[in-house]
């Protein structure tokens, strides 16, 4: 298998204000548009990026404002990659955090479904975190092939 070649990539950084959740998912959706994804794929990407960015805002930085970096990449095998990085408090037990319905913040009506949604809507999810240093959430989705026009 030849190695996939990066077709396009971008990086943006924004403060962890909740109004930037909509910005981040719109940026990811617009970036993916150049690969002609299906409506469902765009909706999956928007939701997954929204979840990861919300996690960084709500849990990573809690009551403070920090910097969130969103890295997006498209490869020629139609793999879309989104990475959300924060320099917040980190996650002590990643496995526990990824369990469906697990939440550290039930009084604010967090459903505890964020990671479960990402896992379902994307093909792969990797969470790397070190307490006190921050978290990286990397998610990939292979976009479907375009029908061949004759």
């Amino acid at each position: 298998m030849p190695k996939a070649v990066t077709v396009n990539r971008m990086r943006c950084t924004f403060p962890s204000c909740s109004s930037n959740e909509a910005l981040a998912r719109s940026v990811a959706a617009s970036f993916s548009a150049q690969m002609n994804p299906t409506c469902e794929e765009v909706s999956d990407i928007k939701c997954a990026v929204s979840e990861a960015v919300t996690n960084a805002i709500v849990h990573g930085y809690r009551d403070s404002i920090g910097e969130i970096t969103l890295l997006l990449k498209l490869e020629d095998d139609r793999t879309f990659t989104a990475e959300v990085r924060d320099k917040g408090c980190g996650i002590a037990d990643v496995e526990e955090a990824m369990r469906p319905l697990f939440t550290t913040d039930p009084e604010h009506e967090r459903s505890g479904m964020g990671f479960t949604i990402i896992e379902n809507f994307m093909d792969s999810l990797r969470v790397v975190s070190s307490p006190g240093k921050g978290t990286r959430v990397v998610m990939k989705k292979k976009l479907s092939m375009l029908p061949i026009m004759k």
Partner: protein
Amino acid sequence: MNAEQQDVIRSITSGKSLTIFLEGDIDHHSARRIRSRIDTKVFIQRPDELILDLSRVCFMDSSGLGLILGRYAKAVELGIAFKVANPNRDVRRILDLAGTERLIKIESAYPPGTRQEVLCRKP
């Protein structure tokens, strides 16, 4: 106009049934505001039934799910019947992923693929 700019929440009261129409994106940012509007309205009206109409909700993530489950819990506490109506296809997928239907009745006036259902989706 998105949900955030809206100062009033659209609703219809029919008998003792209150239908609240949610609009736009429901994420962590907008959920807090929407939540307090719903709760205030319900607290003042004290209906026998609360219906959240999602036909104009274009986007919803797990924060929206938290909002809906939270309103359900509150309704149960107050003895109010609770229903969710007309989610679009994307919103429905989120509801289904969490198995919401085991707890909450989801009604759809527009079966999948009909013109109204398509119109409800974001362009």
